[in-house]
C-alpha cells in the first residue's frame, strides 16, 4: 500500500517537470523584470472584479437612457433623458426617498444608541462572555428567516408578540405589519433586533482598547462619569464605531430582504422605500430603463454619503494612514 503511494507520487513528479524547471522560471523572471511585481498579485482578483462589476455599472448608465423592450428580438429604443425626467417627477420616488431616510435614520439611531449603551453596561461584567455569545445569534439569522419569524410572532391570531401586546393592553388591532401606520416601525424593530448585537460586539471591542490608566487619571483629576465617557472613552471607541456605522448604514440603504419578505412595499405603500420601489419598478412593472435611472442615483447617493461619513468621522486617521 505504502509502496503504491510512493510509486504514484514519484510518477507524478517525473511526469510534470516542465512547470518548475529552467525555461518557465526564466520566462517568469523576464516577465517580472518588465512588469512591476504587484500587477501579478493584483491581476486575478481585478480581472474577475472588473468582468463582473464594470459591465453592470456601464450597462446601468446605458439602460437609463433607453426604453428596454422585453419582447424577444425587439430593439431597445433610445429615449434620451426621459427616464431621468420621469424620475424627478415621480411622486413615488420622492416618497421612497422619504421612507428610506426615515427607515435608515431611525434604524441607525436605535441600533447605535442601544448598541453603545448595552456595550457600556455589559463591559467588565462577569457574564460578558456568555452575553456576547448569545448576542452573536441574531445576526447569524438570514433576513429571510427574520422576516418570516416576525411575521409569525406578530400574527394577530397565533403570534407570541401579538399576544404580549394584547396582554399588556398596548395594541390589539391585528398584526403590526398589516397596519399602514405601524408597518415601517415593525420592520425597523426587526432590523434593530437583528443588528444591534453587531454594534454591541464592535463597540465592546472598541471599549477594550480604552487604556485603564487614562480613565483613572481622568477620574483622579475630578471628572465625573459623563465627562470621562465623552472625553476619554468615546474618542478611543470612535474608529470602531465608525466601522459599525458604515457597515450598517450601507446595508440598510441597499438591502430590501426584510421588506420583500414581510410587506412587499405595502400596506398602502407604507413601506415602499426607494430600493423597494426600485425592485417593484424593475421586476413587477418591468420598467427597466426607469429602474436603472433610480438605481444609479441610489448608488451615487450611497457612495457620497459613505464618503462624507468616513471623511468627517475619520479625518485624523485618514491623514495618519496616508503618511504611513
Amino acid at each position, binding site marked *: 500500500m505504502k509502496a503504491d503511494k510512493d510509486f504514484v507520487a514519484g510518477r507524478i513528479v517525473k511526469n510534470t517537470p516542465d512547470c518548475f524547471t529552467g525555461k518557465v522560471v526564466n520566462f517568469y523572471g523576464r516577465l517580472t523584470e518588465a512588469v512591476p511585481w504587484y500587477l501579478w498579485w493584483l491581476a*486575478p482578483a481585478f480581472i474577475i472584479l472588473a468582468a463582473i462589476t464594470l459591465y*453592470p*455599472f456601464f450597462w446601468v448608465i446605458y439602460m437609463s437612457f433607453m426604453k428596454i423592450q422585453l419582447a424577444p428580438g425587439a430593439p431597445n429604443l433610445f429615449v434620451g433623458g426621459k427616464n431621468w425626467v420621469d424620475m424627478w417627477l415621480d411622486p413615488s420616488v420622492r416618497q421612497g426617498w422619504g421612507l428610506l431616510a426615515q427607515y435608515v435614520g431611525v434604524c441607525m439611531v436605535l441600533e447605535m444608541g442601544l448598541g453603545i449603551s448595552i456595550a457600556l*453596561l455589559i463591559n467588565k461584567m462577569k457574564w460578558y462572555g456568555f452575553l456576547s455569545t448569545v448576542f452573536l445569534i441574531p445576526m447569524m439569522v438570514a433576513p429571510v428567516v427574520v422576516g418570516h*419569524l416576525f411575521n409569525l410572532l406578530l400574527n394577530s391570531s*397565533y403570534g*407570541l408578540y401579538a399576544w404580549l401586546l394584547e396582554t399588556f393592553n398596548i395594541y390589539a388591532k391585528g398584526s403590526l405589519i398589516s397596519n399602514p401606520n405601524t408597518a415601517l416601525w415593525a420592520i425597523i424593530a426587526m432590523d434593530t433586533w437583528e443588528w444591534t448585537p453587531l454594534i454591541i460586539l464592535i463597540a465592546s*471591542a472598541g471599549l477594550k482598547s480604552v487604556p485603564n490608566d487614562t480613565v483613572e487619571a481622568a477620574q483622579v483629576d475630578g471628572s465625573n462619569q459623563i465627562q470621562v465617557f465623552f472625553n476619554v472613552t468615546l474618542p478611543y471607541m470612535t474608529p470602531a464605531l465608525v466601522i459599525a456605522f458604515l457597515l450598517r448604514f450601507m446595508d440598510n440603504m441597499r438591502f430590501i430582504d426584510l421588506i420583500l419578505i414581510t410587506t412587499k412595499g405595502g400596506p398602502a405603500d407604507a413601506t415602499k422605500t426607494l430600493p423597494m420601489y426600485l425592485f417593484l419598478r424593475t421586476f413587477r412593472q418591468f420598467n427597466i430603463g426607469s429602474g436603472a435611472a433610480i438605481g444609479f442615483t441610489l448608488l451615487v447617493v450611497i457612495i457620497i454619503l459613505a464618503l462624507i461619513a468616513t471623511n468627517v468621522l475619520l479625518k485624523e486617521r485618514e491623514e495618519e494612514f496616508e503618511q504611513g
Partner: protein
Amino acid sequence: MNRDSISVGKVIKIIIIALFFLWTVVPIIFMVSSAFKETGDIFEIPQPGDWKGIFRLLFFFKVSMAQFYKMFIEGKFFKYLLNSVIATVCSVGISVPLGLFAAYAMSRGRIPGKKHLYFWVITTRMAPPVAVMVPLYVLWRTYGILQTRIGLILAYTTFNLPFSIWLLRGFMDSIPRELEEASYIDGGSRFRAFFDIVIPLIKPGLGTTVILCSLFSWNDYLFALILGGRGSETLPVGISELESATSILYGQIMAGGLVMIVPMIVLGLIIKKYLVTGLTMGAMRG
C-alpha cells in the same frame, strides 16, 4: 446614601440588560420550539394573560420531528442545502485567496493611483443589489450561466471579493514590513515571505474574512432568487417558497431557519475571539 444610590443604579442596569437579553433571545426560543412542533401545535396560543400557557408554548411542548421530515424527506431541502453549501464554499474559496493576493499588493506595492483603485474596490460593494440585478441577469444570460450554480458562485463573488480585499488589506497594513524585509535579506522570495510570515500573522483576520463572506453568501436571498431560479435554489429561496398565495408553512420555515443558523453559529463560535477584534482592526485602516 451613596451606597444606596449605587445599588439602585446596579438594579436598573441589571433590569435593562435582562430586558435586552429577553428581547434578543425570545424570538430565537420561539423559532426553535416552533421548529420541533406538529403543524397544529404551532398555531395554538393561550388566551391573553395566560402566562403559564406561554411557558408551555415555549418550553414544555410535545416534541416532534415532523417539520424536518417534511422538508428533507418529502421536500427538496437536501438539494437546496447542497446548492447553498456549494455556492457558499466555492464563492469563499475564490474570493478569499484572490483577495489575499490583491490585498497584499494593495498593502505593499507602490501602485500609482492606489487610492482611486482602492476606492473603486470599495464602491463595488456599496452598489444596491437591486440596481445591478438586471445587468447581471443580462450578462449571465449571455454567458449561459443563468440558473446554474456557477452563475450563483460568480454573483456572490461580486460582493465577497471586494469585501475580502477591504478587510484583508487592513490586516496586512497592521503587520510591520520589517518582518518581511528580514526574510528577503535571508534570500527568500516575495512568495516565501508571504506564505511564511504574512499568512501566519493574519490568521485571525483570515478567519474573520472567511466567516463574514460565508455569512453574506449563505444568507443571501435576492441574488439567489433572481439569478438562481429553478436550477440552483438555495436554502433562503427554498424557505421563501414555502409561502404561497394560500398558505404559509410556518413550521417548515422555522425548521429551515434553524438548519440555516446552526452552521453559522458553529463557525462564529469557533472564531468568536477574533471575529469582532478582527472586524474592527481590519476595517479601521481602510
